[in-house]
Structures are given as C-alpha cells and as structure tokens.
C-alpha cells in the first residue's frame, strides 16, 4: 500500500507541466544552480530509475532538496512535524472529552432532551466548515474578548502557558468537528451494547445501573469505538491542514500549502508523503489495537 502511495506521490513532481525546477526558481533563475539541482534530482534518467533512486533516498530519510531554498526537504519536514503532532493529539483529546460523556449519556437516556441536544450537536458539528468555525473563534476570543492569541505557535519547553494559549483555539476547532462525529458512534455502540443479553443478566442479578454501564456496557462498546476513533484520527489530519492555515500554525499542512503557493514541488512531495505515511500508520495501529482488544479477531 505504502508502495502505491509512494508511486503516486513520486509522480506528483513529474506530472507538473513544464520544468518544475525552473518554475520553482522563478525570477531568481541561475543557470549554475539550475544545473546542480537538475543533476541532483536526476531528471536526465529514465522515470523508473528516477523512482528507484527517489524511493531508496526516501527510505533512508533523504527526500531531496527544495528547488526553492536548496535546503534538504527532510529537515524542513522534521522541523514542522512536532507542531502537527501536537495539534492532532490535542484535538483528539478535545474530541474524546466531548464524545465520550455526551455519547454515553445520550445512549443511556435515549429519547430524552439531552439525547436530542446531542443529536443536534453532532449534526451541526458534521456540517460546520472547520475553517469558518476557526474564524468565528478568532472573531470572538481574539478580537472581541482578546483573551487568546489569533494565530501563531509557542514552544512547550520555552513557555508552557503561551503554548497552551496558542493551542487552545485550533485544537477546539478540530476537536468539535471530530467529537461530533464520534458522539454518534459512541451513542450507537453503547445502545447496541445495552441491548445485549449479558446486560440483562447483570441487571437481573441486581447490579446498580452505574455498575452495569461502566463495567459491562462501556467495556464492550469500546471495541468498535477504538476503530472509529482511529479512523477519525486519520481523517482529522485533513482538518489539521486547513486549520493550520487559519491559525498560521507552523505544521506540515501549512508547509504543504506554502509549497503549493511557491511551486516548491519537492517539499510538497515530502509533506504529502509524510502525511500519507502517518495516515497509514494510524490505520495499522488501529487494526492491531482492535485485535488486541477483541481476541476473537485474528489477522
């Protein structure tokens, strides 16, 4: 699978009409630099050979150099990776903080006003454009209330408070969208679990509703939920790209967009490859976790 992804990502640079190096250099065209970059990129070789060289490089962490700055692509990616991972992780935490209590409560009190409110919330969350929500947050919290910074990033090690203040709005933006989708899944898997025989048995032997829900229902509802959370984490990477743009969060998504803008195709190639690899890794971990949680599943 990763191989297929790599072919597609490799072709990205080669499908660009015209000469990608020349395009990337733009008005700063210098024949000497051009010659060096083009030799390094191996554009004079046949395509399969180029792919082999590129793949061999990629496996050892060499993704070539930026056609624009001449810097190694890998360095630029590693610089941006922590910011993206921080944002993705924080967003998942926000999503779970919303989805778990809301989903469980609305399943246990199915048909109540709370259940209705949760349904409305998830419908709204699924439909709201994340970039619009981000702008609304900026409008309210940065412009009117002036309690949070509108954009940017601070390192956790340098200033933890500034780090958290910068992280809050982007993480909540992504978290609300993911959380609203997860709420639906928590609700339906808890509802399904509630209807099982072992729950009836647990109730029949006189256990309190609290014990029934926490010990018998939740544990079994967790299994399908892990899969969905994992898949959400993967799709969340898509949301991260746009939200990074809204909040000028210096992660991989913003790097990819800046590379598109600058026509810096090797950097774009590297960023797309790294994000797609993360995406596949998450799916793999989810599969393994699934088998571990439910011993009936064998791979």
């Amino acid at each position, binding site marked *: *699978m990763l191989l*297929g*992804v790599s*072919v*597609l*990502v490799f072709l*990205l640079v080669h*499908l*660009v009409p015209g000469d990608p190096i020349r395009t990337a250099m733009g008005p700063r065209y210098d024949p000497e630099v051009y010659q060096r970059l083009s030799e390094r990129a191996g554009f004079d070789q046949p395509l399969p050979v180029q792919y082999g060289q590129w793949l061999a490089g990629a496996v050892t962490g060499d993704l070539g150099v930026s056609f624009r700055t001449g810097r190694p692509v890998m360095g630029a990616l590693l610089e941006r990776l922590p910011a993206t991972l921080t944002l993705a992780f924080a967003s998942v935490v926000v999503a779970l903080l919303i989805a778990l209590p809301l989903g469980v409560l*609305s399943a246990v009190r*199915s*048909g109540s006003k709370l*259940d*209705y409110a949760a*349904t*409305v919330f998830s*419908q*709204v969350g*699924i*439909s*709201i*454009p994340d*970039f*619009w929500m981000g*702008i*609304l947050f*900026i*409008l309210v919290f940065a*412009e009117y209330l002036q309690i949070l910074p509108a954009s940017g990033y601070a390192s956790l090690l340098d200033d933890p408070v500034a780090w958290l203040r910068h992280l809050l709005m982007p993480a909540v933006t992504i978290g609300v969208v993911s959380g609203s989708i997860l709420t639906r899944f928590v609700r*339906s898997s808890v*509802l*399904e679990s509630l*209807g099982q025989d072992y729950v009836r048995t647990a109730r029949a032997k006189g256990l309190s509703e609290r014990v029934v829900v926490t010990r018998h229902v939740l544990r079994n509802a967790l299994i399908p939920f892990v899969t969905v959370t994992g898949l959400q984490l*993967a*799709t969340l*990477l*898509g*949301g991260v*790209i*746009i939200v990074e*743009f*809204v909040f000028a969060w210096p992660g991989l998504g913003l790097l*990819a*967009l800046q*590379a*598109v*803008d600058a*026509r810096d*195709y090797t950097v*774009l190639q590297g960023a*797309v490859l790294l*994000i*797609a690899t993360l*995406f*596949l890794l998450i799916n793999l971990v989810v599969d393994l976790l699934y088998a571990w949680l439910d011993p009936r599943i064998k791979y």
Partner: protein
Amino acid sequence: MGAVAVSRQQRWLAFLRVVVANRLAAAGLVVIVLLALAAIFGEFLAPYPPSDLDVTSRLQPPSGAHPFGTDELGRDVLSRVIVGARVSVQVAAIAVGISLVAGVLTGLVAGYYGGRVDTVLMRLMDVLFAFPAILLAIAILAVLGPGLTNAMIAIGVVFTPIFARITRASVLSVREEVYVRAARSLGASDARLIALHVLPNVLAPVIVQTSISLAFAILNEAALSFLGLGVQPPRPSWGRMLFEGRGFVRQAWWMAVFPGAAIFVTVLSFNVLGDALRDALDPRQKSAIEARGGGGPA
C-alpha cells in the same frame, strides 16, 4: 420489472412521507430548493450586481440598503452570497457526478468480474483512499493548477473510491442472487446482466452516499477556494469570500460570517436530507435503528 417499479415507487413515497413528517428534513429540502433557485437565477435575485465596486461604501456594516454589509471594495455581500451559490452547486454536482460515474463503474466491474480485475481496481482505489481527502485534492490542484474546472476534477477523483467500495460491496451480494443466475442461464450477456439486473439492485446505498457526498463536495470546494486553489476572483464563491473576509475580521465581521453561514446551512440541509433518504431507501439501516428502540430525531 413491474414488481421492481412498484417497490421503487413505494420507496420514493416513503421518502416523501419521511420528509413531510420530519420538519427538519422538510426545512432541508426547502433550503436546497432555494439554493437551486439562487444558483440558476442568482443575478436576477441579487439586489446589486455582485461585482459592482463602490469605493464610497467600503466595509459598510449590515443595514437596510446592504443587509449583509459590504466588502473592502464596496461590493454587496448579500448579492455575492446569492450569486456564489452557483459555484457551490456547480462544483458539487459535477464533482459528485464524476465520482459517481467513475466509482460505480469501477465497483460494478470489480465486484462482478472478481479475481485479478477486482484486485487491481480495488488496490488502486485503496491507494487513493490512503490520503486525507483534502490533501489529495490539494496535491492534484498543485499539479493541474488552481481553478474551478480543476477543483471539480480533484474533488471528483477524491470521492471516487468511496463510491467504488460501496458499489462493489453491494454487487458481491447481488451477484449470486437467483434472478441474476437465472438471467445468466438464459444467455444474457455480461453487459446486459450488469445494466439490467445488478445495477438497479445496488442503487439504494449509492443514492444515500450521493447526498452525503454532495454535502462534503460543497465543504471541500469551499475549503479549496478558501485556500486560494479553487475559484479565482473576481467570480464570487463562498470559500473565496471567507478567505477575503478573514483578512478583515477586525474591521468587518460580516465579510466572514455570512458566506460561512451560507456554507454551513447548505451542508446541514444536505446532511439532514441525506439522513431522511437513508431512512427511506435503506431499509436495513432503518430496521437497525428501530431495533435499538428508536433512533432519536433523524
């Protein structure tokens, strides 16, 4: 054939009943009809020409003359929101049309023939599925260059695998049905079997997916235009307006709030209607919800 037609009619009746009974779905349908009207007759409905500059009334807050205010060039935001509906509808319809045709064809062929054809086609779909949708669209637009047509193609490619998967899964269950085997034993060709016997029986989940995809296509088009990769100025589009409004958030909140609200309400309507459609057309899903003691408001 008669029996199939009746049951299909019944399903549409069921859908209409759901829409009428469910106020939310009815509201969604009303919004979509209004959207279609705005897309077709936008210029006639808009109070001002959407690209008319008026430097004397730049960044005016909402008022009687300009209910949604004006932008940094003095253009009427309401008029631009109305006319901007066309881009959303156009991109959503064509992009989903592309993925519908490509995906359903792929799924039909892969599911019907199985074996190596299935393996190759579905691995290809898996590769496309291995990217976050918006990232793949961005990458495609980086190659093709920004613009409306390319945005349609990009979104169409990105949505193809989901249609292929859904179709293939249904084909696998329909392929071995008695009526298909009967038609085959009568000497029907593969093309005839697929077109007349398999396709009509795998359509229900595809229709449901279409309404969901329309919502996501509108969302994705807006995102791409917001990132500067979709519709190019001066043509009004909601995503582009949001991008321009973002730069004026401090001075003119209305520039970002109203186009975003238009995207939100439209996507919400398609989603609500999609749910109603699912309840009516996908009986398995319906019975699953009923078995759980009521699925809450649809």
